[in-house]
């Protein structure tokens, strides 16, 4: 097969033993001597002017160590996109959603902190809350932010190819709509932050973040600290999926309270606060007008999107671009126009979530393809196969397909599911649906404008030569990047995984932009490979000189260093020296080629500590148009899925019975982990397709802020998933690898919607496809077609 010793295998995760034994530590598991507990005062109103805030009673409460309000908090604005810094640590003039932070308290225990929060008096002048995009866009609507004229936070317009000519030549044109509801990341670990300041004024923030680097920059900027005085560490993190990527007031307040008190402070969100803070999937309203020729070849896509962004920008500018750009592939699309508006409303801010920006757009587009297939009498997979791009092609919006196993994915799911038994005529309550997906393998540019490398890795051989430590700032949030880094290092050094340690998630260890945009395997994997190769070269150079052989005569395998053409006496000299250093030890090398430890020890004795460094920055990528930075990536993952569903026509209940999923992740680094990402993607996609919906009451309050009322799939909701790993070779990826963590969610919603259509003949235009919505659609259809 691949000829790799470790890559493409099924090695166990490095952190699995500590996680199964309960020894893994997450932020809330940490305590410090003298630690205080923090609590936040959050707005009970969705939109109001703050007339007066009086925290004197809170400050006077015994046990309270510090109270933070606008008066003593920094006023620096922050946010994700530097062009949209619209948040402050605490509110000053206005509150903009239920949950907006007004004050923070540190006290000896949680009960006291919460009591203090309840003692803070705030007088509001209520303003009309704008709770949906219509209200926010209405002429004369109050402005939520001074800077966002007409409550528009971003407006995107992109056009590629000759849309009008394509429209004129189209054989079929149709316009369809789809919207979703706001979602929750629903990661199991609520956000938690622990801040401590040492006696030299250096701040360490331990946080359940997925981007220590961006958080550290924000903390330094807002607190006005030089960058060397801020360190951000992530211990184990209980899932992120996007919402944990942005720096938050929780983190900043905790840092400030630690500064104010000189004591460690820890603040933990409740589950309700996770819902209030949100920063999860936006609500999207998509309208697509699409045209095909007689053979079902796509001619154009005219796409409009409105995003309900909630109260702040967060990642939303990127979201607004991704919603359009990700439809440029994997199908040949000669002309595409995309217009989107991101609207601010008085609801929790939305941000990035798995499949950032593209999930609902993809769902609508893929259901449209099925409608075209039906109108043309074509098999939906055949229609897709007629349109898929091949490796080497470039999309109309300049996305370069350096590798693309789209055709292989489609054929694989077609051949390994019940597709052949699918009835073309919809109805009967059982259905099969297919869809494709496409996603970036890392954002081409950092969030802030910079030539910065996107990641660095330092690989250091122990002075003993016996083990290797990989140090990186990468964010292990459960997706398995520590194990990926170890596997790549193992492959380069021919060294078993148990000899490699990975330290990550710490800004002191190196720069890494974090776990988002499905970037870590391609980017940090590259850097790890480079660092390990530098280590290997250093050892080779020392060994080649010592043995008088050419560097090319030295190979690393199975924990050994094989040298061709070396004199036995010279080899023996190295071994003798190593053994002499270890007099009295057992298990010393005897016979056979040099061990890695012997070779690496020699390298240390000659050169001092052997350290290799690696880095990665994407090459210049296509597109010079506005917004080209969002969507261009060094590589793209693609996927296809088939969902088989049973719909109860009486109750509207949908049961997904089986999903067949294929994903092109390039060379798989660890097959078990690739499958795990695919399973997780399908599960989140099914939740979004069928049940997940943050509900708001008329005042803008989340009406279902619990995991009982906001339903995510349980083990009983999940079908058997067959996973098929398609391995193209990605020239821009380390060992040919690319993404799987986010792209795998793309086909799930449309595959389910297409299956529901196949089962019932109804198109769902608003997600989730809950029983009520299915029944309503069935009723509407019956009303339209009497008899």
């Amino acid at each position, binding site marked *: 097969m691949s000829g790799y010793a470790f890559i493409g295998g*099924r090695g*166990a*995760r490095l*952190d*699995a*033993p*500590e*996680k*199964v*034994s*309960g*020894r*893994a*530590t*997450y932020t*809330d*598991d940490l305590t410090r001597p003298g630690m205080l507990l923090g609590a936040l005062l959050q707005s009970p109103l969705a939109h109001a002017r703050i007339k007066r805030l009086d925290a004197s009673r809170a400050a006077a409460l015994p046990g309270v160590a510090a109270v933070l309000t606008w008066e003593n908090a920094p006023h620096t604005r922050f946010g994700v996109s530097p062009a949209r810094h619209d948040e402050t640590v605490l509110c000053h003039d206005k509150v903009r959603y239920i949950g907006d932070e007004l004050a923070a308290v540190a006290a000896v225990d949680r009960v006291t902190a919460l009591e203090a929060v309840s003692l803070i008096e705030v007088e509001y002048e209520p303003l009309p809350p704008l709770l949906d995009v219509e209200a926010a866009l209405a002429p004369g609507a109050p402005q939520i932010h001074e800077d966002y004229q007409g409550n528009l936070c971003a407006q995107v317009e992109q056009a590629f190819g000759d849309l009008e000519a394509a429209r004129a030549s189209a054989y079929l044109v149709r316009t369809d709509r789809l919207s979703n509801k706001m979602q929750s*990341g*629903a*990661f*199991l*670990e*609520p956000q938690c932050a622990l801040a401590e300041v040492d006696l030299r004024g250096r701040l360490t923030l331990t946080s359940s973040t997925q981007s220590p680097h961006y958080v550290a920059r924000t903390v330094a900027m807002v607190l006005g600290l030089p960058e060397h005085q801020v360190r951000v560490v992530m211990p*184990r*993190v*209980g*899932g992120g*999926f996007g919402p944990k990527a942005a720096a938050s007031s929780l983190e900043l307040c905790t840092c400030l309270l630690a500064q104010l008190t000189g004591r460690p402070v820890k603040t933990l969100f*409740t*589950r309700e606060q996770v819902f209030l803070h949100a920063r999860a999937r936006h609500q999207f309203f998509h309208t697509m007008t699409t045209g095909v020729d007689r053979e079902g070849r796509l001619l154009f896509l005219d796409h409009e999107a409105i995003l309900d962004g909630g109260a702040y920008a967060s990642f939303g500018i990127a979201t607004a671009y991704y919603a359009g750009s990700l439809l440029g592939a994997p199908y040949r699309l000669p002309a595409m126009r995309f217009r989107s508006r991101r609207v601010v409303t008085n609801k929790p801010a939305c941000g990035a979530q798995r499949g950032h920006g593209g999930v609902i757009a993809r769902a609508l587009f893929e259901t449209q393809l099925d409608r075209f297939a039906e109108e043309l009498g074509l098999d939906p997979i055949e229609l897709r196969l007629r349109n898929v791009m091949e490796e080497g092609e470039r999309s109309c919006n300049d996305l370069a397909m350096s590798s693309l196993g789209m055709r292989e994915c489609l054929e694989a799911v077609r051949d390994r599911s019940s597709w052949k038994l699918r009835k073309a005529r919809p109805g009967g309550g059982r259905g099969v649906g297919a869809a494709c997906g496409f996603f970036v393998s890392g954002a081409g540019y950092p969030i802030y404008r910079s030539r910065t490398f996107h990641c660095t890795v330092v690989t250091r051989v122990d002075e003993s030569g016996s083990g290797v430590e990989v140090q990186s700032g990468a964010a292990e*949030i*459960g*997706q*398995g990047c520590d194990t990926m880094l170890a596997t790549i290092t193992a492959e380069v050094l021919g060294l078993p995984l148990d000899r490699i340690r990975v330290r990550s998630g710490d800004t002191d260890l190196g720069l890494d932009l974090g776990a988002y945009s499905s970037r870590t395997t391609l980017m940090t994997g590259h850097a790890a490979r480079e660092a390990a190769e530098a280590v290997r070269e250093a050892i080779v150079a020392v060994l080649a000189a010592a043995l008088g052989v050419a560097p090319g005569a030295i190979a690393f395998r199975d924990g050994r260093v094989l040298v061709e053409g070396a004199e036995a006496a010279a080899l023996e000299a190295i071994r003798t020296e190593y053994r002499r250093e270890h007099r009295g030890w057992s298990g010393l090398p005897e016979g056979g080629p040099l061990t890695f430890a012997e070779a690496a020890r020699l390298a240390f004795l000659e050169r001092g500590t052997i350290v290799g460094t690696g880095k990665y920055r994407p090459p210049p990528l296509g597109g010079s148009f506005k917004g080209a930075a969002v969507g261009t990536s060094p590589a793209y993952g693609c996927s296809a899925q088939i969902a088989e569903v049973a719909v109860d026509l009486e109750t509207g209940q949908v049961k997904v019975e089986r999903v067949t999923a294929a994903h092109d992740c390039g060379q798989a680094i660890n097959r*078990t*982990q690739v*499958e*795990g990402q695919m*399973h*997780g*993607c*399908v*599960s*989140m996609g099914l939740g979004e397709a069928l049940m997940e919906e943050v509900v708001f009451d008329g005042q803008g309050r989340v009406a279902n802020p*619990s*995991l*009982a009322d906001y339903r*995510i*799939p*349980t*083990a*009983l909701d*999940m079908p*058997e*998933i067959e996973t098929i790993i398609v391995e193209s070779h990605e020239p821009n990826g380390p060992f040919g690898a690319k993404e799987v963590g986010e792209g795998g969610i793309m086909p799930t919603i449309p595959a389910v919607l297409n299956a529901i259509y196949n089962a019932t003949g109804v198109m769902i235009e608003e997600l989730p496809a809950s029983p009520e919505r299915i029944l309503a659609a069935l009723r509407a259809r019956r009303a339209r077609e009497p008899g």
Partner: protein
Amino acid sequence: MKRFVSLTVNGRRYELAVAPNRTLLELLREDLGLTGTKHGCGEGDCGACAVLLDGTPVNSCLVLALEAEGREVTTIEGVARGSELDPLQQAFVEHGAVQCGYCTPGMILVGKAHLAARPRTTAGEVRRAISGNLCRCTGYQKIVEAILACGERPEEGGR
């Protein structure tokens, strides 16, 4: 007013003074430092805090510490024998049933209780047994596989 409670945790007896509204989860995590039991919601909705109370899974965030009087609690820290993992823990490692790991302690305890009651189990039964334990990362499939692998005669496909 604090009250005394005596209970056995992972085979060791403890006597502690606790506030009447203290939960078993708080007692374990904060008083005993057994942080392997996770807090995901505090409302009985997620199963991350599951422990065994006299062998039966409970969500420890819903159990008052005082209710554990005289009872035997098993937490994730009590599952391995020293540094030797329990077969079910080992199966979780080998099957890739762990991602972020936050649901893992609860899953393993519920899985153990289920296997103790139904050693010859099926995938369907396992899914039912863990249906109160949410996992956002894995889609459950590898968790089900890991638990089935520790059954007496893992039966495929039965749902």
